[in-house]
């Protein structure tokens, strides 16, 4: 068998994420630099066809929204303090149904916290971004290959569903250098923008069969486009709480849930006979992979589920959980954010957290919890 020629490079994942986004067709990066998302900013300045340095994160999201109204697929990268400033504008973009990708690189909070320390502390914030609890899609990268493959998928999801999509990572994932074999990275397929042509008349928020309205940019002059952040019906004109307007608002949630199957990404390493399932995502995947390997080498059984499509939580994950006596969720935060999003506040004995702040969770800490719940 011919061995393919290795092409080993030494790089951080920020570079992979940036390059794959551009290859997938993202053409505008707008950002305000913040540790630990600053490498993405720097690489984007070198690589994106259009790059804008915004004076702050509110402006960032507003400019991105403007670019999206004009038909672009904009991207930004930030960390919690910046994301917090963006939240009202993300609500706006969600209500306006504008496609964009927000790369959120987690660091230790609350507030400014420690900028140079990693964390997985922002899932609750992302989950609660939208007033009314509407689902904001969130994909999480857990490996080198994810950093290459998921950004284009996030972009495609944003374009297909006309929504902001959060692409979640953390400091240790995007700033650590790794040797990688470039020949292992597949070709990036450019995002296919949803096809849309007007039949008779155009109503800006009249949904298609998949509940997503066809998009026309304001650059054309055949059909009037109305875009609004206020409660509206299919016309795009502000309404009071009329049935049509409320129906339109409810559709924002329905369109994401209805189409979620197409964007469900996870790795499930199932071990026959295992009674314990270890769930993780993002940076803790490294420790979980080592922990599972060592645990199995010691003659024990456990399965591993790495969730990549994090939000909204897909029903498939619960199906998987139902096959186990114990579910252990490892994440680098104090409160167990994914655990509570999936299983609520009640202390149910079969769901156990492995949690830590200020340092990556160690494989040994996961193994100990696995052993405690055999």
């Amino acid at each position, binding site marked *: 068998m011919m061995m393919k020629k*290795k*092409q*080993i*490079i*030494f*790089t951080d994942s920020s*570079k992979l994420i940036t*390059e794959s986004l551009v290859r997938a067709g993202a*053409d*505008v990066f*707008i950002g305000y630099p913040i540790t630990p998302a600053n490498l993405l900013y720097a690489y984007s300045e070198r*690589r994106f*066809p*259009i790059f804008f340095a915004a004076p702050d994160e*509110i*402006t960032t999201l*507003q*400019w*991105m*929204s*403007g*670019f999206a*109204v*004009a*038909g*672009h697929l904009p991207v930004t990268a930030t960390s919690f303090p910046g994301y917090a400033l963006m939240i009202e*504008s993300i609500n*706006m973009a969600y209500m*306006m149904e504008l496609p964009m990708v927000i790369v959120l690189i987690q660091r230790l909070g609350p507030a400014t916290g420690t*900028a*140079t320390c990693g964390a997985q502390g922002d899932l609750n914030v992302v989950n609660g971004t939208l007033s009314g609890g509407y689902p904001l899609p969130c994909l999480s990268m857990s490996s080198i290959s994810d950093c290459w493959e998921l950004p284009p998928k996030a972009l495609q999801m944003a374009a297909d569903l006309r929504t902001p999509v959060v692409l979640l990572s953390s400091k*240790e994932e995007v*700033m*650590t*250098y*790794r*040797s990688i074999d*470039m020949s292992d990275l597949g070709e990036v397929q450019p995002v296919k923008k949803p096809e849309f042509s007007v039949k008779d008349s155009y109503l800006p928020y009249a949904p298609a069969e998949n509940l997503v309205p066809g998009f026309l940019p*304001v*650059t*054309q*002059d055949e*059909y*009037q*486009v*109305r*875009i*609004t*952040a*206020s409660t509206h019906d299919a016309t*795009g004109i*502000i309404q009071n709480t009329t049935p049509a307007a409320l129906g339109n608002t409810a559709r924002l949630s329905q369109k994401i849930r209805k189409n979620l199957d197409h964007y469900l990404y996870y790795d499930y390493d199932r071990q026959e006979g295992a009674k314990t399932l270890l769930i993780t995502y993002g940076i803790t*995947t*490294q*420790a979980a992979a*080592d922990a599972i390997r060592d645990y199995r080498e010691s003659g024990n059984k456990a399965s591993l589920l790495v969730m990549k499509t994090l939000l909204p939580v897909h029903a498939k994950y619960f199906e998987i959980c139902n096959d186990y006596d114990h579910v252990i969720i490892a994440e680098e935060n104090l409160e167990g954010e994914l655990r509570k999003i999936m299983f609520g506040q009640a202390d149910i004995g079969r769901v156990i957290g492995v949690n830590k702040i200020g*340092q*990556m969770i*160690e*494989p040994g800490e996961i193994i100990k919890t696995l052993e405690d719940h055999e």
Partner: protein
Amino acid sequence: MSNTFIKDQVLPFCKGCGHSTIAINTEKALTKLGMNPLDVILVTDIGCHGIIDKSFNTHTVHGLHGRSVALGAGISAGITNPDKKVIVFIGDGGATIGMQHIIDAAHNGYNMTVVIHNNMLYGMTGGQPSEYTPMGFKTPTKLSGSTKPSYDICKIVAAAGGTYVRRVMGIGDFSDALAEAFGRPGFSLVEVMEICPSYGVKFNPEMKLSKVVENAGLATEVIADLPAKPYATDRREALPSLFSPSDVIPAQAEIRLQAGTSTHGELRIMMCGSAGEGTQVAAELLARAGIRAGLHATKKGSYPVTVGVGFSAAEVILSPDEINYTGTVTPDYMIITSKDGLDFGRKAAGRMKSGKIFLDESLESPATGAEIIRFPFREKTGARNASFMGVFYFLHDTNLLPVEVMVDSFNENKISKKVSADQFLQLLTA
């Protein structure tokens, strides 16, 4: 689509409101310029003025309170056809919230016109004063009158670089002023002075608009009139990939790594030095040397946010197998070249039960179970090169990788233009 800009309907404002006058003058101005409704993108936000969009036959975009100028700026920068016109309607409240966006848009010179509907208070929320409320002007929540002068937004925008800036009274026909602004490529702004009929007139019955404006020292005139400065977004096509063939690190040899103390043959080396002393570069070159030797490698840095002072630490992992976990565990080896580095690395040193710590001779020994090997890294090569010396010394002592591989790794970096690898090698054999 109709050629008129405003639908045939009663405008949605209170009787006597200047906002209606602005809408009518906007239509007149656009008609004078010979524009079609769908050549125009009207951006509005929250406040009474914002409910006008339903009356316009243009494209309309309705956003967040105070952010319409930033939203309009994004649209303007995202549009490639120059015959489109972005017009932003904003109130004095929104222009208070989003003043930075206005200054910024003027400074960048985006092709857009901002029309400030200055009725001297926040009307939709009950008549609170804005930063545009003139001194002495009474509002429902400030019955004694505003205690500070209003902003002169026109002067601010002129200073920021607006090409056409003008203040007008919101009475009668001011469509020429608007047409002048709409027709000017680059950033223009027209501030239209009004008094809110519901809250302003009621609480200031004795005041006439012209008198209020005059007393506020706000001149109704052209404040800036510069040659047109069309804005064009810089779009850079076909930029090179972030990865180039020259990034590929050549494999020189397959080295059988001696297993460290960790279970799976991984070798963890922690380098602790000071900012500006090459710790990060030295660690990267060590990792690259490992890759040249056929190993997998990772490297991560730790340093305070002020990257130019304090400690600078790096952890390198070398392994014959793929590396998953890159968190801090007990290192197999440490290279400590400064006091800052020692203070940072003391905890890790304390965890070591075996292995070696290569310590600068000037430093006190940390509590550790590792063997301590002292060498005057700083004295022999200077502080700036102490980390490089540390790496060479480490490889020379442990023989984990051939020193030649490290020399090649070193020579591919620009640091080799400043200091020669020979300098380190000579010290090793001295």
